[in-house]
């Protein structure tokens, strides 16, 4: 006979303001099988949990329903309390009367009735809960870091230094990410390359880190502790073991006029190239779309000049399979290009550039060797207009969020410009100056006060070209919304930071969720900022949302810490909410017919064929068997099985049937 305890939480006033908690408790007390029912202000607090623990003992409860917030929030809390009371932790269910009731309805009888119905449903469910034992699975103590920007570098080094193996996969020919493209960094103005390059070299030299550049994730299977990952190592057309990085090939390549990605199209590179001088690894790749040999079948000059004979035109993509226990997603971000802005000419004006292009112009290793010269004619611009929030915080552009880094880097750009062009004048159109951070506001003040950047609070409505000048038309909202027109020599748009190319596809390969802007979603915005909803997969850096360098690095170290915790045990415990095929005594053995129509629906290949044999070893039956190590508990096989021979713990046929029954037949 079931003895169920019902615990109605007020959640301060979050529930009790709209739901009559004492009344719900009173009604629930009368449900068949309910032995105890009460309400309390904060069920998740220590006294609240003690209340649950004591009630279980005192009333000899066989199961509990905690009627409070979403199970996605506090299910683990109350399962622990349930266990503390001496019950199997899985004899606990949560009735969600906060997110699904009190927060979405007005106070009234209908809302009370709904809360009562939700509680009744869960009471009927918990009566049918089974006692379950957690599943133990081994952990492969190797981490995969996807993305070799500053976040990936930090995560990889921290994990490696904790003594674990790391596999790093980078899409480009070199690690370094966007940080390697920056000139100086705010708020200290130290050179980006100078602080990053040593870290890049460390990655290459750390014996615990295996680096795959020019490689992408092909597929990911498995689950926390036991991922199987296929990596596509794209053909570099160069034998990495032989190449000594002498650079002869890139110097002699006759096909030199290809847009340089690293310089964002502001310079050229040969068809065989190293993206930038400090690249790690310092091994060139051949761009097959541009190489004369791949296009016309003739040339091979690089092969002739290569002393170590490392050029391999017939090299093919290689698929590498690795087993890892945890994955760090550090794939970074991208920015909107200037062609995103019709009002600024759809990208047709050469001297309207984006922030990253300005970084390259200001960088000593950039296309102008650090001199600020405009792309159209190489002149030194005497008037530059910076437009902050280009795209960001603009619902009409589909980007409601703040890109976070632009206020600071725009201030930095104005400072760098003034340092390089002393008689130049920078104008900055802005909405708000967001400079929250250590020494950040001081930095923007420096731009205004020491380096005479003219900040104009207002948006730019249009930019057009006239007589070789860019006419920037905007409003000054601090001057009675007067129209301002500035004849600029160059315009820098601080374009919105957006999700990186391929983010959505990667998220789908890894089964992690992402938001409407394709940024990866954290498991909890406050309490689990570096975890994803998928166990064993973590995220750091700007793949989550635009972030600056210190934030990305901090998150990356957080991820490394999480992964080190995971790797601290050789086994990990998994929730036993998995599917199982019915087993009975001979001669039935099972109601399973062995049709295996469940097999193709399993996303995890967890359904195996089990042979039932008699004493003589003769095959009697073939039955489906679900590997508990592989099953993730989606339950698709349950719904597909015609003879209802498969059931899934936590969502059994009996439970679901009882829930529907309780909702309607009362």
């Amino acid at each position, binding site marked *: 006979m079931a003895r169920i305890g019902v615990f109605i939480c007020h959640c301060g006033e979050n529930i009790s303001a709209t739901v009559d908690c004492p009344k719900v408790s009173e009604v629930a007390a009368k449900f068949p099988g309910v032995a105890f029912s009460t309400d309390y202000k904060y069920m998740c607090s220590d006294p609240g949990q003690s209340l649950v623990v004591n009630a279980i003992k005192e009333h000899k409860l066989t199961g509990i329903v905690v009627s409070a917030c*979403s199970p996605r929030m506090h299910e683990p809390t109350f399962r622990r309390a349930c266990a503390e009371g001496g019950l199997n932790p899985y004899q606990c269910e949560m009735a969600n009367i906060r*997110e699904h009731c009190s927060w*979405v309805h*007005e106070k009234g009888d209908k809302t009370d009735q709904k809360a009562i119905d939700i509680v009744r449903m869960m009471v009927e469910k918990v009566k049918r809960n089974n006692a379950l034992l957690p599943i133990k699975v081994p952990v492969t103590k190797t981490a995969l870091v996807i993305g070799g920007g500053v976040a990936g570098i930090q995560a990889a080094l921290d994990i490696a230094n904790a003594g674990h193996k790391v596999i790093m996969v980078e899409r480009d020919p070199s690690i370094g990410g966007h940080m390697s493209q920056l000139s100086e960094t705010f708020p200290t103005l130290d050179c980006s390359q100078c602080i990053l390059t040593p870290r890049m070299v460390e990655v290459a030299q750390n014996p615990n880190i295996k680096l795959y550049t020019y490689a992408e994730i092909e597929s990911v299977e498995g689950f926390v502790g036991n991922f199987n990952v296929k990596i596509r190592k794209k053909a570099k057309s160069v034998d990495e073991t032989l190449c000594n990085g002498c650079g002869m090939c890139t110097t002699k390549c006759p096909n030199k006029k290809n847009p340089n990605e690293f310089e964002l199209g502001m310079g050229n590179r040969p068809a065989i190239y190293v993206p930038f001088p400090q690249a790690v690894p310092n091994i060139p790749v051949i761009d097959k779309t541009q190489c004369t040999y791949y296009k016309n079948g003739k040339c091979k000059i690089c092969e002739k000049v290569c002393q170590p004979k490392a050029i391999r035109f017939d090299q093919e993509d290689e698929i590498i399979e690795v087993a890892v226990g945890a994955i760090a997603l550090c794939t970074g971000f991208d920015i909107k290009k200037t062609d995103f802005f019709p009002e600024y000419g759809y990208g047709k004006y050469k001297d309207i550039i984006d922030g990253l292009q300005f970084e390259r112009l200001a960088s000593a290793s950039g296309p102008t060797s650090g001199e600020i010269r405009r792309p159209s004619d190489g002149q030194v611009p005497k008037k530059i207009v910076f437009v902050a929030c280009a795209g960001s915080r603009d619902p009409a552009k589909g980007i409601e969020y703040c890109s976070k880094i632009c206020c600071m880097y725009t201030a930095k750009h104005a400072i760098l410009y003034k340092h390089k062009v002393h008689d130049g004048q920078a104008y900055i159109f802005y909405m708000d100056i967001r400079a929250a951070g250590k020494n950040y506001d001081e930095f923007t003040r420096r731009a205004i006060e020491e380096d005479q950047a003219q900040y104009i609070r207002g948006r730019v409505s249009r930019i057009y070209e006239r007589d070789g000048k860019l006419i920037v038309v905007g409003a000054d909202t601090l001057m009675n919304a007067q129209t301002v027109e500035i004849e600029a020599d160059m315009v820098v748009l601080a374009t919105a930071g957006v999700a990186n190319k391929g983010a959505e596809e990667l998220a789908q390969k890894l089964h992690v969720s992402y938001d409407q802007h394709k940024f990866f979603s954290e498991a909890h915005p406050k309490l689990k900022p570096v975890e994803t909803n998928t166990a064993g997969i973590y995220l750091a850096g700007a793949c989550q949302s635009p972030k600056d360098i210190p934030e990305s690095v901090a998150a990356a170290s957080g991820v490394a810490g999480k992964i080190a915790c995971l790797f601290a045990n050789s086994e990990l415990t998994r929730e036993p909410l998995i599917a199982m095929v019915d087993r009975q005594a001979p001669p039935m053995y099972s109601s399973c017919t062995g049709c295996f129509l469940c097999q193709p629906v399993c996303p995890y290949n967890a359904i195996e064929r089990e042979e039932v044999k008699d004493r003589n070893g003769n095959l009697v039956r073939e039955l489906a068997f679900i590997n508990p190590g592989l099953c993730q508990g*989606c339950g*698709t096989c349950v719904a597909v099985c015609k003879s209802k021979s498969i059931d899934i713990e936590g969502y059994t*046929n009996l439970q679901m049937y009882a*829930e529907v029954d309780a*909702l309607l037949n009362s």
Partner: protein
Amino acid sequence: MSEFEPKIVAFVCNWCTYAGADLTGTSRIKYATNVRIVRFPCTGRIDYMLLTKAFASGADGIIVSGCHPNDCHYTSGNFHARRRWMVFKKLCDFMGIDTRRIVFSWVSAAEGVKWADIVNTTVEEVRKLGPYESYHKLSTQDILA
């Protein structure tokens, strides 16, 4: 007589629509009280027999909702569900079971507003259609007829 209040049962997956409905709550977006949510791990788990069971037990409308294509937490549960729904809907249409009362939708964990919208429009649509008596009656009356 008070206005007819439809009973709506929602069968939703844990990862997208249940979380989406949680977000509706966290965002304090109000919607009709008529809906009761039954949580499943995945749309792939949702048995069509629970749908007829709900109708037989007196539900006036049903919402079946999960992750958008390609967003399934389990990769493909929603794809299997989608196909099953197609066939089930075809059968219901052929047998005169009112599929206007079954709303299939994709609501992601980020679509709190959409969830409120789906519930409200379903409640209104079903309110217009009136109580679903024909199927419910089968199970309550004429049992021996």
